[in-house]
């Protein structure tokens, strides 16, 4: 069991560029979550999928952010026209079910927008 795998681990991008982050959940887990962590805001929920379907994206910024889960083995978080305030560690997590089971986190993707 390799755990939740996130790539890239680090990404530096210029303001206005696009950034795509990948997540491979633990095999067999049906729920996939995206969180963002900053020093100021702490850990913030962004969005989650159950059986690849988007269930709750209430934490996603309304513009420039999108998430997809095209198959059960990976999810992507895309940020268009990145801004310095998007700099954060983006964490992906998976669980067997969405609320009744332990959540397992990946090591995160650190995004720096310069």
């Amino acid at each position: 069991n390799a755990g939740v795998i996130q790539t890239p681990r680090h990404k530096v991008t210029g303001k206005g560029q696009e950034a795509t982050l990948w997540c491979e959940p633990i095999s067999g887990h049906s729920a996939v979550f995206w969180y963002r962590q900053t020093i100021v805001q702490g850990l913030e929920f962004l969005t989650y999928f159950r059986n690849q379907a988007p269930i709750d994206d209430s934490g996603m910024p309304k513009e420039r952010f999108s998430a997809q889960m095209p198959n059960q083995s990976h999810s992507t978080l895309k940020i268009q026209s990145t801004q310095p305030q998007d700099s954060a560690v983006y964490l992906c997590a998976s669980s067997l079910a969405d609320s009744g089971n332990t959540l397992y986190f990946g090591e995160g993707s650190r995004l720096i927008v310069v």
Partner: protein
Amino acid sequence: GDQVEQSPSALSLHEGTDSALRCNFTTTMRSVQWFRQNSRGSLISLFYLASGTKENGRLKSAFDSKERRYSTLHIRDAQLEDSGTYFCAAVPTGFASALTFGSGTKVIVLP
């Protein structure tokens, strides 16, 4: 988030001593999970509780089963490797399924 109030924000304790962290919830929660974040940033799950208590080695966690408004994490006989930032996170009762995190407790264990 506003729903999860974690205290203290920081804690220093000497090896061999005991301490407790607490999370108060502004609404009833369905379940709570405790994590430790290490220096690399990895969030490691310590406990998942829907009610009652769980114990693992020197760590013990409790979730108030009646009111469902608070949870505690006890560290017994603290060791240097217990240093890190501890987070509690909880799922409100109702339809929500995503964890809401507290702001964390930075624990430093001193020799």
